[in-house]
């Protein structure tokens, strides 16, 4: 295959215009001892039918939740997505456009970013959101770095062990390079104790980062944790599942300074981990410490309403080594999917969707807990769409048997994170798991 359109005749005319005899002559700017004349080992180019067949063979080696009922969550969730989302995002004017640095040629994308920011702020109770960040894990570290810039002389960060394990891993990696101490708070009965946060004490704490519902599905007391953070002079960072905000309080109303999370479940497939998108929202007092793109409304010289990228002096292309972040690429197309998704569900549809998740998850939990040896790991704690069960045999064995005998992809085996938790099973139930699937799961687990 080639996507080059130049013909031999074109090439000859172009070379003549340049005044050289061949493309090789143009390539002579590469010094002789740097030139490569070998074979890259990619092989011959494949035509469309050939590459399609090859890729189908690879796709068929995956066992995807599309063809198998799945109760796997642990930070990535599938939800119903209206067909119109696919149709609209398939418009080439969206997916083949560049970053909207030229506002007159990009009002479409800019307006959707403005809408996305509004969506995120209305869900989270914040005042400003950016155009998206890489994912949920990097959203938390960006929130932490925002806090390190905002809180004077800070060099410590407190984080709950209820954060997604990848988020904790990312915090460790980033913070090591800027000499910031990371203090991890253990969970008690599945939740982060606010007293333990307060007890850290001392000076220089930039932020307290928690996740709610946390990695074990447990709903944290965001208000108490934010108060504990503020007691230390720190910012309260709350990572949330945006879909939980259909029925759960906006963290902004509970004292959070930064609300962030993985937004992929809104209108996007999990894609084996990416591309999805992260979101990051905060209060206006922190806007100049925000990383990444922000769209804002203004007018043109005739007074027409217009949307532009704003507060650009924060960004790397202007501030270079003094920028708030090195981020340049956003996850624009995924954020656009989320914006259209949320608009189509609307105020009431979004709440209904949340209640479907809540209801089905509780139905499934109740039914599974009636099976001998199964019980909620944290019976006193609330959950939204995912819950942790104690199991009578290792979760890994249950999962293997479910897939082999029933074609069901089971919940997450927490033993993969911590061998001591090998009898703990994290089960996610969303609107894509209908009653028939849930009943089949319960029956299958009961028959093991």
């Amino acid at each position: 295959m080639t996507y080059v359109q130049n013909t031999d005749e074109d090439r000859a005319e172009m070379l003549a215009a340049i005044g050289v005899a061949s493309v090789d002559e143009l390539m002579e700017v590469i010094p002789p001892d740097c030139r490569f004349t070998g074979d890259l080992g990619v092989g011959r180019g494949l035509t469309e039918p050939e590459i399609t067949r090859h890729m189908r063979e690879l796709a068929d080696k995956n066992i995807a939740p599309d063809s198998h009922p799945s109760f796997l969550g642990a930070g990535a969730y599938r939800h119903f997505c209206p067909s119109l989302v696919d149709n609209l995002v398939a418009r080439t004017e969206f997916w083949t456009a560049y970053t909207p640095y030229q506002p007159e040629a990009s009002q479409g994308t800019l307006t959707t970013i403005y809408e996305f920011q509004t969506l995120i702020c209305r869900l989270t109770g914040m005042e400003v959101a950016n155009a998206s960040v890489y994912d949920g894990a990097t959203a938390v570290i960006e929130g932490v770095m925002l806090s390190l810039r905002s809180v004077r002389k800070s060099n410590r960060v407190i984080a709950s062990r209820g954060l997604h394990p990848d988020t904790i891993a990312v915090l460790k990696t980033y913070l090591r390079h800027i000499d910031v101490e990371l203090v991890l708070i253990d969970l008690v009965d599945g939740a982060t104790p606010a007293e333990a946060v307060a007890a850290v004490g001392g000076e220089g704490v930039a932020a307290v980062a928690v996740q709610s519902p946390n990695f074990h599905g447990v709903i944290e007391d965001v208000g108490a944790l934010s108060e504990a953070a503020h007691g230390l002079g720190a910012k309260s960072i709350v990572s949330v599942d945006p879909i939980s905000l259909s029925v759960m309080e906006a963290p902004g109303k509970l004292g959070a300074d930064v609300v962030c999370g993985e937004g992929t479940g809104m209108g996007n497939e999990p894609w084996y981990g990416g591309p999805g998108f992260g979101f990051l929202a905060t209060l206006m007092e922190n806007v100049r410490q925000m990383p990444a793109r922000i769209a804002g409304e203004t007018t043109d010289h005739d007074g027409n309403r217009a949307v532009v990228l704003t507060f650009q002096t924060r960004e790397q292309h202007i501030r270079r080594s003094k920028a708030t972040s090195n981020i340049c690429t956003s996850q624009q197309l995924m954020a656009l999917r989320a914006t259209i998704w949320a608009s189509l569900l609307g105020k009431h549809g979004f709440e209904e969707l949340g209640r479907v998740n809540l209801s089905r998850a509780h139905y499934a939990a109740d039914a599974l807990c009636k099976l001998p040896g199964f019980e909620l790991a944290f019976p006193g704690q609330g959950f939204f769409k995912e819950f942790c069960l104690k199991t009578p045999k290792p979760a890994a064995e249950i999962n293997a048997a479910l897939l082999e005998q029933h074609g069901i992809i089971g919940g997450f085996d927490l033993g993969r994170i911590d061998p001591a938790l090998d009898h703990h099973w994290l089960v996610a139930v969303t609107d894509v798991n209908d009653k028939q699937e849930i009943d089949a799961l319960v029956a299958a687990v009961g028959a093991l």
Partner: protein
Amino acid sequence: MTTTEAPTTCSTVSAADLPLTIFEKSKTGRRGVRPPPAEVPDVDPASVLPKHALRADLAELPEVGELDAMRHYTALSTLNFAISNAFYPLGSCTMKYNPLVNERVAALPGFGPLHPMQSDDQAQGALELFWRLEKILASIAGLDAVSLHPTAGAHGELTALMCMRKYLDENGGAHKKVILIPDSAHGTNPASCTMTGFTTRELKSNARGRVDMDSLEAVLGDDVAGLMITNPSTLGLFEPNIKLICEKIHGVGGLVYMDGANMNAILGRTRPGDFGVDVMHYNLHKTFSQPHGGGGPGAGPIAVTSKLAPYLPVPKVEKDGDRFRIVRSAEHSIGTTRGFLGNFGVVVRSYTYIRSLGDEGLKRVADNAVLNANYLRAKLGKSYRVWVDESCMHEFVATAKGLPNGIKATDIAKRLIDYGIHPPTIYFPLIVPEALMVEPTETESKETLDNFVRAMEAIRAECDDDPEMLKHAPHTRSIGRPDEVAAVKNPRVIV
């Protein structure tokens, strides 16, 4: 395509035409798409959630019908320039054709729904794709190992700098803190250094836009951890002394990082590993046709020599016989820099693209990217000053400095929009005043390039004949030049 005369009058926009956001089109009681019924007993949140977690007020999402939502977003899309409707000679961004076969393949049901927490056994096809693309990217780079973990070019920089830090720390270079960066570099380079605890020292370019070797000598020292260099540079120039530069950095115990944003120019013609680079990143959304999506997603894989390979991030993919598995911890690894393995959907598209082209096709990319850029340089050089007017690679930089009547680069850029052409990158690289950075890519036809040249020549004439009209361009879009100062002074960042 044939238009070389652009309209100069703005269509009248009345107040009623002002584009409203979807939130402002909301009407109480209107419904769009409905979620499925619960089918199980409805659970009242108040009965199962802690009181403090109960939402008091529903989020004010829009209440719109499906048809109006369709029209709203369709209308918005038409306000965009995109590869599908306009030539995009946007320097440094490699706005090439995004093949549709990539999209069709990515839509296979075995890809999108695949869950990142599934066991390796259930994701053999995905892991094989990661592994295959890693091998190809290593070969193109002439380097030994690749990580597809980083999410974007700047994220690749960050991840790679962390690998460099750890390698130096464990090999007697803990005192090395300085990264040298040419003054023509992308802004992400110094920003990434700051985020990884390095300090930066700027390297001056010489009059020909290359690294000034005296300037390099002057800053070399034992504190130098490495060099971040873009080659070909942001001026579209191949660095003739690249081998010597790499040797000098190695001579003080430093590492050479290459920003691979401009790999499109050299695919199969030269390999960074062969001229002394230790570590580099790719932008799959530039070189390997992942669509830009209005700003993302992308992916920024890094390639390294064998001595840096142990430091690559986890998770990473390994081949074990004929099976593939994820390695989640490794003794020397820097750790994790994002959630999950990587941007798999981007891997699918770029792998499809590379296999579609094959060895010969990849070389054809480089050859025609360089041919198209030089053709434009030769043609445009007659009406505009090219900053370093010698054989370029995939792009070149012209300047609007010295144009009559106070015409700026931004005026040229805005006026091009009226001719249906996306502006070049402007005011970058910073070392060229009033820069107009032009990258046509290999996928544009000669007719498109000629049309661009005619438009630029027409605009050059307008600089003399109608400068005021130019200063108020564009005249043909839904908006004229927006007031960006007001957007900061009176911020309105949500509806």
